[in-house]
């Protein structure tokens, strides 16, 4: 079979992209408003959002959207993010990002790094959402639980916030051509051969299968 490397291949459908952006948007809004509430010196954020009281409620409402988008993300992607044997090899070689490698195990749809980010998102997301729910009415809980909730909320953000930057970098300028998967949903054949060769092989067999 002969293919052109610039040929565009549909890698995501609109549902997947919209789900991603609702999750990302609510998560980012929560992060920014939350940082505004965490650091007194960043009062510019609550000020721009209409004051601390408004920021509190916007943070809560955005958190509710985040929680729902998180459940949806889990349902959508958990199967494709289960670690498999080859993922260890990928991780041991740093995904090819850190030193030259030429025998990365071929990836299906998500590589081990993406899978790790997904599970980090799910894990931290659950911690953040559950602790956030406790923080809504902390006084109905035993004080120990309420105190742990405030602490774990910050811990979850610390971990997820840092990992998010990796996701942002590798999804955009770190891997040119990748970001299109979340905008137009179409990536080049060369991109697919590089990042998800096993998925591409299956796709070439049956182009209607395995999108989203």
């Amino acid at each position, binding site marked *: 079979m002969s293919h052109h490397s610039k040929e565009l291949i549909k890698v995501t459908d609109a549902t997947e992209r919209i789900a991603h952006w609702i999750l990302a948007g609510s998560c980012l809004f929560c992060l920014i408003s939350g940082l505004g509430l965490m*650091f007194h010196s960043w009062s510019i954020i609550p000020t721009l959002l209409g004051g601390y009281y408004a920021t509190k409620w916007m943070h809560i409402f955005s958190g509710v959207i985040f929680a729902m988008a998180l459940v949806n993300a889990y349902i959508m992607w958990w199967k494709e993010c289960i670690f498999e044997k080859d993922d260890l090899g990928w991780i041991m070689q740093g995904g090819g990002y850190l030193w030259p490698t030429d025998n990365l195990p071929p990836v299906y749809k998500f590589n081990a790094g993406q899978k790790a980010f997904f599970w980090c998102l799910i894990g931290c997301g659950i911690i953040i959402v559950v602790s956030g729910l406790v923080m809504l009415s902390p006084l109905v809980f035993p004080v120990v639980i309420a*105190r742990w909730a*405030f*602490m774990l909320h910050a*811990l979850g953000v610390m971990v997820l916030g840092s990992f998010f*930057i990796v996701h942002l*970098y590798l999804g955009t300028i770190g*891997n040119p051509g990748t970001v299109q998967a979340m905008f137009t949903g179409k990536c080049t054949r060369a991109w697919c051969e590089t990042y998800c060769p096993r998925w591409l092989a299956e796709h070439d067999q049956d182009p209607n299968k395995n999108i989203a």
Partner: protein
Amino acid sequence: MAEYIKLIDVTKCTGCRGCQVACKQWNSLPAEKTGFTGSLQNPADLSFTTWCLIRFDELEKDGKLKWIMRHDACMHCDWPACVKACPSPGALTRTDEGAVIHNPKFCIGCKSCAVACPFGIPKYSKAQDKIAKCTLCYDRITDGKQPACVTACNTGALLFGRKEEMLEKAHKRAEQVGGLVYPGNPKYETHVLTILPAGIAPKDLSQMNPDPKMPATVLWWKNLFKPFTLIGIGGVAGASLLHYLIKGPHEAHEKKEGEE
């Protein structure tokens, strides 16, 4: 600025509740409807509109019945957990005088302080979506007056004055009655001290934390996770930029002819 201390001498308290009334009056706090519960404890607890109250305990010590009446209100910690936990600047402040005051104008009703406080002092009102607590009558003490509760106390169970003077008085009085100065922890200073009668330990009394301290969860949250959120995000962003500058973007490689 001088620091002040309020001294609560439990050995002198008769439970007249003059302090409760004076507090309500000075701070324009409405009375609460309460019921008879079979105890002299009334109202049952501090609330959004009850900033100080007499805690009543009935104890049996050495075969004898003992009644303890204890004035309870904000302890005005030297290093207050409530202020550390508060997200809204100006809502809770540790003043130079040592009083920890709340400003309803800036309170956003997040309840962080109520959770962090080792004494359970800040009380939340759902209707107002704010917290309130004793201010050590900051408006009075900065005007050279004593807190309203101290003014009303007619047995000398409540005293107010300069920190050094009150510390000395507290320890002298504790020695005299053979009791304890609470919290009495040099690592956890408060601007309210309680003198307990001989043979009475904090754990014997209701709503008295035997070991008040800054909660460890608040320290982990504010001293570790908070700075490391920025260090993490900033560090990873910096590392990503360095990766971009050194290794460059990872280009999708085109499959060469005949490779397949």
